[in-house]
């Protein structure tokens, strides 16, 4: 491993341990989780603890990059189930965020107005 890669690996390991300290450890080591008996949770239930920690680390960094405060990111992640954590890790870029952000490009305003009038959309308040 080159020195550069080693440094990257060590930094990653350190950040994982920092996150570990705030990580909710629900079950004693070796216990098989309830999710194993629930079909929709089985995949998440069977991944290793290390993979969970790495996903945790990965998503934490992505959230911080998206503007979440370092101090609160661990608490936020603690509320996620393992399946949700994995989902976020894989798809955070594709996930929608409800917030009313609207990128209006001038020419489509008229189209939206028509759609609003026929009741397909509900963007404008008093129409």
């Amino acid at each position, binding site marked *: 491993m080159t020195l550069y890669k080693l440094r990257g690996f060590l930094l990653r390991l350190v950040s994982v341990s920092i996150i570990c300290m705030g990580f909710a450890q*629900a079950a*004693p080591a070796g*216990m098989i989780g309830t999710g194993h008996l*629930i079909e929709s949770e089985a995949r998440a239930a069977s991944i290793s603890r290390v993979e969970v920690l790495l996903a945790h680390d990965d998503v934490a960094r992505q959230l911080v990059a998206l503007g979440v405060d370092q101090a609160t990111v661990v608490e936020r992640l603690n509320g996620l189930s393992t399946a949700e954590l994995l989902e976020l890790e894989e798809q955070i870029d594709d996930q929608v*965020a*409800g*917030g009313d952000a609207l990128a209006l490009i001038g020419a489509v305003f008229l189209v939206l107005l028509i759609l609003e009038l026929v009741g*397909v*959309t509900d963007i404008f308040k008093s129409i």
Partner: protein
Amino acid sequence: MPALLLLLSGCASIPEAVRELPAGAALELDDAPFYPQERYQCGPAALMTALTQSGADVALDNIVEKVYLPGKKGSLQVEMLAATRTEGRLPYVIDGTLSAIRNELESGRPVVVLQNLGVAAIPRWHYAVVVGIDADRGEVILRSGTDRRRITSTRTFLYTWRRGDYWAMVVLRPDELPATVNRERYYAAIAALEQTGRLEAAALAWRTAENRWPGDPVVLFGLGNVESALRNFAAAETIYLALLKLDGSLLVVRNNLALVLAEQGQFAAAINEIGTALERNDDPALEAELRDTERMILAMRAAGQ
């Protein structure tokens, strides 16, 4: 015109199962609290309504910190669920139908919904809270944005809701069942609560589930696992044994039973259990976990615990 048609494509009819509503008296939760939203913060505002209605003691600023994602100018659905759990409540994604919404309202629970107020090509994602429904007038009443009562035709509501795949959630107290319950989804919701370390809440929820479905293996496993996590090993042992009486083939239960026996210093019994599990196992994925457990138990015995 072609552009307009393109934008309209996807306006095909809404499935019957989604839009059917039994005729009934109009329903509205007048006292559901209202939190007029700040810019981009419809997620926190909507979640606050549902959380405070469920009796949680929460502050808007705290919720904003838990769900608002500045880089996306909004809130992710999974974080709405996560924040609910950190406030000691059980988030549950309900069936994507109007009658499921109505049933929740009838139980006194407002429903948080994700809407795309625009179209697929020009989306405007938004969270609102359904607090009322009137089948006869064909109207849905929402706490939405800065409107305490935004009255929308059912038709328009369905279009906006469909684009979000009919996503809707309620905030349950741990001892509450959803009005329309999908058992597997409900169990997954409780398991998620367990995973996030909300053990007392998870225990309460599993006991609620047990009342409803006595003897269900998933419920008993959940209860046993919560007791183990709380380090009530004797209680966990009792539950696992009862579960194995119902279904002796559940090797995952044997695994956990072996561990709680070891935790109580009963090493011979523990080794016996894990040995049985290994003998009977033909699932390669489970093999590694069972072997790890065996190693752990032997190590615990050697350490003279």
